[in-house]
């Protein structure tokens, strides 16, 4: 599904004119299989988020190639990349990234709006999903009127609404308590099982990593397969 081949990336650090490159990703290669949950763990600053940003098309790698479903995405223009994301990817962020001015319903509706889906069709789809993820009661609440767990549910629903084959999650439970974390993990698992959605989850939490089919260890810009693997 996703092929990551020889990805290298470094950031320029320092004042203008005196920048020096700091390598963050060093020749990474791995593959994400369709319908699997993979998890990338590693210490803070090891380059996990940078890798996800490159896979999602937010950032262009210095070298190497990403292929998603047979399409080389690493050479995309910004517009192509945006179009591709809208069709293929869903995102779950650590701090939810909901629109403060939109209600639960409207936040979930947003990607459909971007796709140009009609109002009637949008309403139908969002209503169904809101029911499914248990947000019916709070559909008219604004983000600041929701609990952290509810907000993350909204953000998951938003990622799901376009029915993407792949969902990227960067620390999806990073700002939730352990009980809520369990709820969210259960939801991810069930979505993976019922809809066959591929998840790429970045975390430093073993608990979260435990739901993955495959775990990768990021260490100083190098990725190692394996790590803790719990059977369910």
């Amino acid at each position: 599904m996703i092929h990551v081949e020889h990805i290298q990336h470094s950031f320029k650090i320092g004042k203008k004119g005196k920048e020096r490159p700091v390598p963050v990703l060093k020749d990474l290669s791995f593959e994400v299989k369709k319908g699997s949950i993979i998890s990338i763990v590693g210490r803070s600053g090891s380059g996990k988020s940078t890798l996800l940003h490159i896979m999602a098309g937010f950032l262009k790698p210095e070298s190497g190639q990403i292929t998603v479903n047979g399409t080389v995405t690493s050479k995309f223009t910004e517009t192509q990349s945006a179009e591709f994301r809208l069709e293929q990817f869903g995102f779950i962020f650590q701090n939810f990234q909901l629109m403060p001015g939109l209600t639960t319903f409207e936040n979930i509706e947003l990607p459909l709006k971007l796709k140009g889906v009609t109002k009637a069709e949008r309403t139908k789809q969002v209503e169904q999903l809101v029911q499914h993820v248990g947000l019916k009661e709070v559909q008219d609440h604004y983000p600041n009127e929701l609990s952290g767990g509810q907000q993350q549910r909204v953000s998951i629903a938003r990622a799901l609404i376009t029915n993407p084959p792949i969902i990227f999650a960067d620390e999806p439970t990073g700002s939730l308590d352990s009980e809520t974390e369990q709820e969210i993990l259960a939801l991810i698992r069930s979505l993976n099982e019922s809809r066959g959605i591929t998840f790429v989850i970045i975390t430093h939490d073993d608990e979260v990593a435990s739901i993955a089919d495959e775990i990768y260890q990021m260490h100083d810009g190098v990725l190692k397969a394996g790590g803790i693997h719990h059977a369910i």
Partner: protein
Amino acid sequence: MQFKDQLNFVSQHIKKNKLRVFMTILAATMGTAFLIILASVGFGIQDTLKKEILDNRLVTQVEVHSADLDKEKADKMKKLDHVKAVVLRQEVNAFQTTTLDKYTSPSSLLISDFSEEKKAGFALEKGRLPKGKYEVVVGHDFAENLMNEEEVEKFQSQQQANESNEEEQIVPELPHYEGELLGKEITYEIGSFETGESYKEPIKLTIVGIAKAPSKDFISDGNLYADASLIPEMEAIYDRHKPEESEASLFYSNLNVYADELQNVKGITTTLKDDGYSVYSISEELEQIDVFFLALKAGLIFVGTIAILISSIGIFNTMTMAVTERTREIGVMKALGAKPKLIQRLFLLESAWIGIIGTLIAVILSYAISILANYILPLVVGAALGEENFGELNVTFSIIPWQLVVIASAISIGVAMISGWRPARKATQIDVIDALRREL
């Protein structure tokens, strides 16, 4: 994203920042209204001036000046397109006096072709046009020029006596002939300008018609109109008396060409000019006025545009702030798959919206101010000048033609969009990763 949703998106953001957007619109409104009002004064004055000119003159008339105008040339001009009539008048270049009973008048005699005169609009109030040699038509105000010296003197001395008692300054009408004119015989004499004496060879003429009053009541017509049959007799008299050395002829010609419509005056004027005549028509004057006012209006619009440019700084600020405030939201939209083009369009829409609403209000406001100014200013100016009937002068201070609205709207909305351009570009360049990293 559907256009409807884009508008929705924009209006939601505007609602969130009502006061700021309101102030920006206010600035845009003021700038645009200033431009429209300023330029409308140019349109108003131009209109007033043109009206004044068109009202006071025969607009379809083209005056032709040339040394030797004759019937042949006049006939040629008659064949030009859109020429309604060519009136060749012969005026008498001598001292003239007309007598009726004991009344005399210094009226001028005009020799003309009545069929052409008729086509050009010459009409009678009473009687008929001359048929025979000694028949004339007199101007509408002919009688007023017929005066008796004794009567006038008596009247004036009386008047002087009254004046010392009364303060009133009504100019009294001098006594003149009051009787019937039609069918009356008058005595017409020519004489020398130098001596102011007639040659004592009177010609008896009969009044057969009285011309209609000129269209403007401040023009008075005291002329005598006769046809060409009188020329030989008059020339004979002149030849017997004129000084030996003089080569001046008794008659000089005056030629007017009349166009069928005002819009054709210019064409006829140009053709005649090309034929070597020296020509004057109202179209020349109107053209000069138009050129002058085009420059004036362009200048006024330019000054008004500066006001709009100043107001555009407000739009630029508002939009820049809007982009900065929404950096995180823009980042999220981009992450979810919004194309840079869409982001740009959303912000351009917002600045265009400010421009459009501002312009709309400005147009309505301008019309209101314009109407009010046209109503109140004449009163104010009239009061200041102490003239009660200033309003009758029909001065229009401000006119807003649709062209002005179109120009002003284009400038205003255009400037709004241009000032929204950079902020919108900035929005598209927002880095997703940077934006997502921001705190809520």
